[in-house]
């Protein structure tokens, strides 16, 4: 099958048109993002919508979404390599998987770095960490994972390396741990009843695998459609990869919504301390984030497309899941903070940063678009570097 026919298989646009569309979209995201970045650096946190009672907002949600995608992609891609799944067994594919992980995790770090009150002190988390804090523990896990991922990328060029597979095993171990720890990050906070649940690490891991599988599927589809699929030998392998990723994403979606139902149904059946937060998720001012973005666009519609459609519909479904699953993070993050333990605290001393209502501001959205642009840019750049290095190396498999 030729490139052009393969593009037609995956997307309604021709390869060149799709590439142009992505490029234009990326430039727009980048430009908008740079405006937000300048605003953030010039005015600090003043244009942001978070405050002291809801201290974390959109960027932190994007951060957890990004690291979740990185973990999920690595688990699936590295397992595929180790288990010799067709299309995943090639080192070139593994490199693309690793580049995708790094491209997801780097903007996540950028987002949380911009969220700090003292960005210049961020390195303290490595120079004087307190491992009683899940945040420090997480940061070290991410750092270790990045090192493992980069080493794996380097070793993937050595077909005879005896350390690549063991290193990938360690990477899988870490990339299962850190999305789970993202859930524990919130779960250990006893002050927030909605967060203080042992289910949260499992929910976050499931979410990571789901979003990771979907992102990988979308990337495979886009690479195939744009005709830039250096590592995919034939359409059969691409189809095989997409079929497998489709199953992983469907299972992830079903599991995620089952866990979410378990969490919500208990508080709705017998209202307990975290019922107010669940009420906010389902019926609060941002009800549409749950019902439309998360459940409809991020769950039901993709499930329908995965079940009924062909590869083109699966690509669209995967894109929907990859994008809309950020709402899963937001729906944990914001409602958890938006319910205080001390009734009347918000009215006791009134200021816009001392209330339980959070609206992301234009600056936060602009910086969010920068993070997305950064992820796309890093992926394209990393992939080109991977291919360029491979073409110069004589030992590539």
């Amino acid at each position, binding site marked *: 099958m030729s490139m052009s026919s393969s593009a037609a298989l995956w997307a309604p646009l021709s390869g060149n048109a799709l590439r142009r569309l992505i490029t234009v979209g990326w430039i727009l995201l980048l430009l908008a993002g740079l405006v937000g970045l300048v605003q953030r650096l010039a005015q600090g946190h003043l244009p942001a919508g978070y405050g002291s009672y809801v201290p974390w907002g959109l960027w932190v949600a994007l951060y957890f979404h990004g690291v979740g995608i990185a973990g999920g992609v690595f688990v699936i891609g590295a397992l595929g390599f180790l288990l010799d799944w067709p299309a995943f067994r090639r080192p070139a594919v593994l490199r693309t998987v690793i580049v995708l992980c790094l491209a997801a995790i780097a903007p996540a770090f950028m987002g949380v770095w911009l969220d700090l009150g003292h960005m210049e002190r961020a390195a*303290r988390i490595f120079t004087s960490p307190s491992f009683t804090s899940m945040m420090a523990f997480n940061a070290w896990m991410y750092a270790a994972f990045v090192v493992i991922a980069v080493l794996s990328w380097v070793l993937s060029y050595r077909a005879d390396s005896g350390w690549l*597979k063991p290193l990938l095993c360690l990477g899988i171990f870490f990339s299962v741990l850190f999305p789970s720890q993202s859930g524990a990050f919130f779960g250990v906070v006893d*002050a927030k009843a909605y967060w203080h649940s042992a289910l949260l690490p499992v929910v976050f891991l499931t979410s990571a695998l789901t979003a990771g599988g979907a992102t990988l599927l979308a990337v495979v589809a886009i690479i195939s459609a744009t005709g830039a699929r250096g590592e995919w030998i034939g359409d059969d392998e691409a189809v095989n990869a997409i079929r497998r990723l489709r199953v992983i994403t469907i299972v992830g979606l079903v599991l995620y919504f089952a866990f979410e139902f378990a969490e919500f149904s208990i508080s709705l059946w017998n209202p307990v301390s975290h019922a107010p937060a669940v009420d906010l998720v389902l019926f609060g001012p941002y009800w549409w984030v749950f019902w439309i973005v998360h459940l409809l666009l991020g769950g039901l519609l993709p499930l329908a497309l995965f079940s009924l459609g062909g590869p083109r519909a699966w690509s669209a479904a995967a894109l929907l899941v990859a994008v809309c699953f950020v709402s899963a993070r937001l729906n944990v993050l914001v409602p958890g903070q938006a319910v205080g333990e*001390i009734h009347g605290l918000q009215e006791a*001393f009134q200021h816009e*940063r001392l209330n339980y209502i959070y609206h992301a501001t234009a600056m936060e959205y602009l910086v969010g678009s920068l993070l997305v642009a950064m992820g796309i840019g890093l992926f394209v750049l990393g992939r080109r570097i991977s291919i360029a290095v491979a073409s110069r190396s004589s030992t590539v498999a």
Partner: protein
Amino acid sequence: MSMNRRDFVRAGVLTGAGLAATVGAVLKDRLSTETSDPKGPGTARSLKVLSDVPEQANEDVLVRMQRELVRAMAKPVEQRRWIMVIDTRKCVGCHACTIGCVAENKLPPGVVYRPVVTEEFGEFPNVSLRFTPRPCMQCDAPPCVPVCPVHATWKRPDGVVAIDYDKCIGCRYCLTACPYGARTSDFGEYYTDGAAEGTPDGDARPTLGPHAAWEDQPSHEYCKHWDRTGHKSPMGNARKCHFCLHRLEVGQLPMCATTCIGRATYFGDNNDPDSLVTELVTKHNVQTLLPHKGTRPRVFYIV
């Protein structure tokens, strides 16, 4: 599966080493309770406050508490146990403590250490109000401390939960961990930023000027000189009540206790059996806020 036995052994060694390193790191910090705070006789203060004022019968509670404060400061820091007792029956909801605290600690907009929560009960005409001042509880099991990723907050030997503004990275994890909402973040706001400024001749239209110079006055929390200009700490940091440690060091009561017009806020050393606060917590059925959270607060309420 294309992994051979050697791959498995290497994977096991690497994963085991990774696991051991993580467990070791967590255990090291979990088991360590020592802080670098100075302790011992060198921390005792010989203060002359009220030394030339003879003790009288029926002294105002503020004077009594100040004498007790001087007595407590003469002990090494680890022998003091600061507590606060708030008699909600006397609190009239005047917010003088809130404002006194803002002035003392040079708190910018959006930062508050001691709000007074007002609750209404009943239906007209059978209504009542309850005022609950809410400083930092200086918990004995503070949930804000272990979540700090950089050791920037800790429990001092005298029980006050302190923040090192020079270490705090401003991640705000501690804000989410406090069930009392006692920590607020300094986002760098000023009361007078963008306020209209007149012109000398009064002819031109007023302009929106920068913040007033008085807002750059330094605060002296933790006995240091904190100048916020140029985004320096405590701007960008988590901030909270610290029982006015800088005032205690010179023999002065916390600002909220001093400004309380109803004498509803009591402060002192719970390790002193003759102190007023010890008397109050033993005589009354005192309560703490959110006891089910297991934080063991050092702020007690008489209700």
